[in-house]
């Protein structure tokens, strides 16, 4: 359901549903909060850098949650950090999306039993859209997670909030 398959033959006019147009705009410019936590953040930075180039999907790091659409939880979330992340999440404007990157953010990872200071999964604090497995995930895996998120946004309804 691309936008251009409904193009008129005499050009310059494209018709589309408002919903599709809105979703297309949103999924093509997912601005992420410039925010990293642990070793996953290194992979996230590698994904942003020239070789993997997050920017080609419209992902640009923003330095304030008030301009961000998505937050990538890239690493171990300590209990102390969890309260701060919750606050950052609440400062982001709707619609907002969360990618949980790596085992630590998904479920506590290697700290699941003896990590007295680790939150066992960021979904205990904020709602997650896409989980990316790995320890840490390679940039390809994070890109796959982003494509999954784009897919999710593409099928969103304006009437009903899905995330």
């Amino acid at each position, binding site marked *: 359901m691309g936008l251009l398959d409904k193009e008129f033959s005499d050009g310059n006019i494209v018709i589309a549903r408002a919903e599709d147009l809105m979703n297309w705009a949103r999924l093509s410019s997912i601005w992420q909060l410039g925010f990293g936590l642990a070793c996953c953040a290194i992979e996230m930075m590698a994904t942003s850098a020239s070789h993997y180039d997050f920017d080609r999907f419209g992902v640009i790091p923003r330095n304030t949650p008030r301009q961000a659409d998505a937050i990538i939880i890239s690493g171990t979330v300590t*209990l102390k950090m*969890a*309260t701060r992340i919750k606050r950052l999440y609440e400062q982001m404007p709707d619609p907002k999306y969360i990618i949980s990157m790596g085992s630590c953010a998904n479920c*506590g990872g290697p700290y699941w039993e003896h990590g*007295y*200071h680790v*939150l*066992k999964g960021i979904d*205990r604090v904020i709602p997650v859209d896409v989980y990316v497995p790995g320890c840490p995930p390679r940039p390809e895996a994070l890109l796959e997670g982003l494509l999954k998120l784009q897919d999710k946004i593409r099928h969103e309804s304006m009437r009903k909030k899905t995330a």
Partner: protein
Amino acid sequence: MKNPEEIFELLKKEFGEMILGLDKDTPVDPTISVDPMQIHKIGAFLRDNEELKFDSLMVLSGVDDANGTKTKDEDGTDLITGGNLSVYYHLHSTTLKHKIVIKASTSRENPVVESVYNVWRTSDWHEREAFDMFGIIFKNHPDLRRILMPYDWEAGFPLRKDYKNPEFYQGMKVPY
């Protein structure tokens, strides 16, 4: 450059009873045990003495010796009464190129050790960490707060052998 026996003899001559012993039978560096309430004076001597010149505190770490009486709590977890908590000081002289380990043991029920903040300024955050993880009180430390755990952490000191993790912290479930 001095070997551990010579360092021990120098300290023994200066401080006498405050120096408790030299343990050479360790898997790593030989360790000198000292009185925890005199460690700041001993530290100043180790730093300033012409033959020792320990100008660098490489690391200060807390240890739970867990040598008290172990009993089981009603929920099956360990409970330790009595015994020691220790502080280890790894010292290095950058000019004379020798090293020594100093150990100060204190009681588990009232763990107080004199701060060496005024001898090696490095010890500031190291002592805060030992306080955070083991609850060792460093007397005369200028700012003894938790450093890693949240300031409102009330469940105790995580690296003690009989530590029990809480069910909840600020509404977040802690166990897996």
